[in-house]
């Protein structure tokens, strides 16, 4: 099997290298063929591996590919751990990536228009883009297939690198290169905590291998560390690792990079800022469940951060007018749901939502991109409207995606989100009540912003200018086929996957269970005990407040942005004005960006400036270095006065000296 796994990882890398270095020679068709072939091969093999795990009792693989280095008796290795959790992630990542690859053929077809005249960067930009997204797929696969923390960190940083390259892809745009630097640095803040977490694991476990660490973890559960007046080792490790997850999975307060990352081309928003890279944090925490289960403090921290993100970031989505930014804030909010699930020890539910969300969010982004193509790269939803007549496939698939997102009964998002809310309602740890309330209210918010966007874009009167409207038409098949391919799992995957993933404890295979839940934290137990099949689950949900809120939000959105808006087109603007200070607070994104820009970025620059001018130049150079040179000079200048060259000066000095000496001798 090792060769299969190696092929899955390396095929996208080969594609990336060929398209990246020889893009000019092989041309556009060559570049997208080779990368799609690579990712396609990975997808097929990943699906095959997943199939074997489902139907053929595939054995868990945990093996080393090569030894990176050995130091101080500690082995750092590059190796794979492939169990059911990994297989599920691999299939999701490669499938979404493949869809995005195909879609990109259409989206980037006229990319030369995005570059200024004569810029050499614009010449092979199409090929370069394919190279990057393939490289990204490789990085993400390295991350999910790692069997140790070192390689996890490699993948972790590699997706950061590729997202840096992709967000700043249109490098002549000031906003793009601002966003990519911001994304990289904010992620680095997370990685800073993550690396310290890895260092703590290395110190106390003496190894970075997952299996060995997990096996040793219960033995270290009661270890205390003399920090902050004594805290449990597990809390320290889990919180530090989670800071990394907050960066990658964009949780408050490290969420600020994700909305800005919409400066990148839309395919990457679908691939890395919805379906894969941002899920790295969720995957990591699920993978580390044997550690997180040993620290309730860390779980509470995770829970509270997740719930806060889920609700408050969703609210911002209500006031956004850029189609991609609405989806971006929805991503933040949904990631918050997943993180909350992890905090409630419902790792399986978190991962389940990760998977369903990967499909419907990729779908929504790609649908948004399809609209953007038709609109000639205008993204303001206030200038859209009535698009359903012009783009039927995009319209239907976007509707499916939106229904899945708000958790409409039967759609994939319904199963995963309801499972999360059910689990969070059961949790007994600190912050559980807070999370429970916010997640439930969040359902209403989700429905409102999703369908505000949906109705403003697809229904009502077309508000775009004459020229754009005349040219509106459905996008080519390379764009619509991925939409349809993603709409299928958005519809059905929840129905089919909930039973194995949440109810029947599918993740455990043999004596290896990637997801470990302590019996007292088993918040999914209630769901399991009362499970009577999918249809009963749907029926049961019909009476719950969660569903009331979702449907209520949907109806409310339809009333405001469809029915009323048909008569009063300025209703949206009026509502925003009605919000007053609340609207402004949301439009300012709670002031995070301003604060960071002024105090963190500005403060760091000021500090650097001060250190340099006061410390290095004034104190050390002028004070110590040139100062000592000057004092030597001054001293020499004083001494030089004695050497006048006049004989009588010397004679007087001799006489004075003589008299002085004699006086001393006589008095002694």
């Amino acid at each position, binding site marked *: 099997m090792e060769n299969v796994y190696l092929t899955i990882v390396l095929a996208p890398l080969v594609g990336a290298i060929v398209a990246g270095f020889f893009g000019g020679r092989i041309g556009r068709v060559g570049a997208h063929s080779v990368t799609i072939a690579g990712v396609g091969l990975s997808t097929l093999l990943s699906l095959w591996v997943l199939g074997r795990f489902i139907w053929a009792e595939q054995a868990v693989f945990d093996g080393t590919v090569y*030894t990176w280095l050995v130091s101080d008796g500690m082995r750092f290795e590059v190796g794979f751990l492939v169990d059911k959790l990994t297989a599920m992630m691999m299939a999701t990542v490669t499938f979404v990536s493949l869809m995005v690859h195909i879609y990109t053929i259409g989206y980037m077809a006229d990319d030369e228009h995005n570059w200024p005249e004569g810029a*050499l960067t614009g010449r092979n930009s199409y090929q370069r883009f394919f190279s990057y997204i393939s490289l990204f797929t490789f990085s993400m696969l390295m991350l999910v297939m790692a069997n140790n923390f070192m390689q996890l960190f490699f993948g972790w940083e*590699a997706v950061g690198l590729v997202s840096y390259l992709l967000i700043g892809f249109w*490098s002549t745009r000031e906003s793009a290169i601002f966003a990519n630097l911001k994304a990289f640095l904010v992620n*680095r803040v997370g990685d800073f905590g993550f690396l310290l977490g890895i260092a703590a694991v290395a110190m106390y476990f003496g190894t970075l291998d997952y299996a060995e660490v997990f096996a040793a973890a219960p033995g270290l559960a009661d270890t205390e560390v003399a920090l902050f007046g004594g805290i449990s080792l597990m809390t320290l490790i889990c919180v530090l690792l989670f800071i990394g997850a907050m960066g990658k999975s964009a949780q408050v307060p490290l969420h600020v990079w994700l909305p800005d990352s919409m400066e990148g081309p839309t395919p990457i928003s679908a691939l890395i800022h919805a379906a894969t890279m941002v899920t790295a944090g969720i995957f990591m925490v699920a993978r580390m469940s044997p550690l997180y289960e040993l620290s309730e403090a860390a779980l509470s921290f995770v829970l509270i951060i997740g719930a806060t993100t889920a609700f408050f970031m969703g609210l911002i989505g209500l006031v956004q007018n850029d189609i991609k930014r609405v989806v971006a804030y929805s991503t933040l909010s949904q990631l918050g749901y997943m993180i909350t699930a992890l905090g409630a020890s419902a790792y399986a539910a978190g991962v389940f939502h990760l998977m369903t969300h990967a499909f419907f969010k990729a779908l929504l982004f790609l649908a948004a991109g399809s609209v953007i193509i038709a609109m000639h790269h205008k993204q303001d939803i206030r200038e859209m409207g009535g698009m359903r007549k012009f783009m039927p496939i995009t319209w239907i698939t976007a509707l499916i995606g939106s229904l899945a997102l708000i958790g409409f009964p039967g759609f994939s998002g319904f199963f995963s989100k309801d499972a999360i809310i059910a689990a969070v309602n059961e949790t007994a740890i600190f912050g559980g009540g807070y999370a429970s309330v916010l997640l439930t209210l969040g359902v209403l918010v989700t429905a409102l912003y999703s369908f505000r966007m949906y109705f403003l874009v697809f229904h009502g009167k077309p508000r775009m200018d004459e020229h754009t409207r005349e040219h509106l038409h459905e996008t080519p098949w390379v764009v619509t086929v991925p939409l349809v391919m993603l709409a299928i799992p958005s519809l059905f995957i929840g129905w089919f996957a909930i039973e194995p993933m949440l109810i029947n404890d599918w993740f455990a295979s043999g004596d290896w269970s990637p997801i470990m839940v302590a019996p007292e934290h088993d918040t999914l137990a209630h769901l399991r005990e009362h499970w009577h099949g999918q249809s009963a689950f749907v029926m049961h949900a019909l009476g719950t407040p969660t569903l009331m809120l979702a449907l209520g939000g949907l109806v409310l959105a339809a009333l405001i942005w469809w029915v009323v808006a048909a008569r009063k087109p300025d209703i949206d603007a009026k509502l925003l004005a009605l919000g007053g200070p609340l609207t402004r607070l949301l439009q300012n994104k709670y002031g995070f960006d301003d604060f960071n820009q002024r105090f963190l970025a500005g403060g760091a620059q000021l500090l650097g400036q001060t250190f340099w001018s006061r410390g*290095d130049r004034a104190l050390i150079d002028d004070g110590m270095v040139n100062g000592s040179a000057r004092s030597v000079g001054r001293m020499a200048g004083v001494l030089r006065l004695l050497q006048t060259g006049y004989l009588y000066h010397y004679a007087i000095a001799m006489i004075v000296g003589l008299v002085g000496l004699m006086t001393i001798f006589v008095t002694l």
Partner: protein
Amino acid sequence: MYQFPLLTLLIWLPIVGGIAVLASGDRSASTSKWTALGFAVLTFVSSLWLWFGFDPGTAEMQFAERVAWIPTFDVYYALGVDGISMPLIILTTFITIFVVIAGWEVISYKPSQYMAAFLIMEGVMIGVFSALDAVLFYVFWEAMLIPMFIIIGVWGGPNRVYATIKFFIYTFFGSVFMLVALIYMYFQADSFSILDFHGLELGMTAQTLIFIAFLLAFAVKVPMFPVHTWLPDAHVEAPTGGSVVLAAIMLKIGGYGFLRFSMPIAPDASAALAWLIIAMSLIAVVYIGFVALAQRDMKKLIAYSSIAHMGFVTLGFFIVFAIVQNSTAGAGAVMGVEGGMVQMISHGFISGALFLCVGVLYDRVHSREIADYGGVVNTMPWFGAFFVYFAMANSGLPGTSGFVGEFMVILATFRANFWWALLAATTLILAAAYTLWMIKRVVFGPVANDKVAALTDLNRREALNLGVLAAAVLALGLWPAPLLEVMHTSVEHLVAQVTTCKLPADEIGACVLARPEPLATVVQP
């Protein structure tokens, strides 16, 4: 048994080559360039013999040579390498090739003398890394200043006189104290052999004074805060080749000095003063990181970044003493030193490459100011790719060599103290911030001005230079195991040595380090 004097060959081949180039004069610039390149390549190829002939299983000095030089004072021409010095010698021979190529058509003023200076420099630096006799070491150490002084003073920028004097006085100031320490030890040990110094039993006062004397010499070379201010000035004024040698190799001599002299000769003083070095290192990482953020000159920025990265080297070396005194730490001491070593090699590649990148721009636009650039990638896509790649390596991206050393040092530091590790790990944010902010302003964005619009992409010579270094950075990042294997035994031996108390019998109560086993007690010569 007759052994081929390989180290002698490596030292004198480039020096002889340098003299030959010098003698050929500037009548035919191309002859002198090709001769210089020939000697540089030949030296590198010969140095590979060191790598392949090296026995990683022993900490003994290998390829050793020993001939009486000044018998009256027991001075020997004694050479030898272990796993610590050998990789540094190969780094030297490797980097010199690129320095020669980098100066190819750029240096038009007295090219033969320029090439000769670098070749002689190479031989002398290899001498520093392989000398086992203190006097021989000192001679090479001081001789190193001369070619560098000339390189900056003759081919440097407008403010070169200030920079050279500052550079010379700074480093010379440090080394005289080292000379005093060496002479003192000669009287104690009746020998100038560095290995004899290692075995010498010394009281705490003597160790402390010796340690401080060495510290003055090595801290200036590394350079450590607060004696670092010569470096940015020297870099700014030096020609590209000079900057590359300075950053890639000469700074490493300071780090090497700590391993070869300070720590094994004065382990007890090192342990007692480790806090000072650790503090200076952490200041280098954090304070200098912020200072780098404020730079407007690309070379200054990279120079400050060098100081910050070298902070990891000294941190890795001296964290050993904190780890052995921390009972809960377990292992980790060896990892600190090895991390520091890897960081030195890696920084050699990355800083060398970054200075070459700045050189590429400077040759075209004649400015190092960040503000004079913007959107370079639009006219120089290949160059842009290389520059971003090396910037990422400088930010410690895993998969590049820049990650390996920092990762190991942070892991080791964590065992000593959480807060120190936290400060060290800020490099993840700071290094990315100052490096990538520079990249944003120089490489990305719209074309800033006519000069940028008129830029031409890398020529074949430049592409070759950067390409080979990029491959080296990637190789060391993806598979550092071979390098670690080579140095492992020597580093373990060193760590055992520096964690054993060397105080004489009447001071043994003051030992914080492990007391020597009775059998292993060093017999006074």
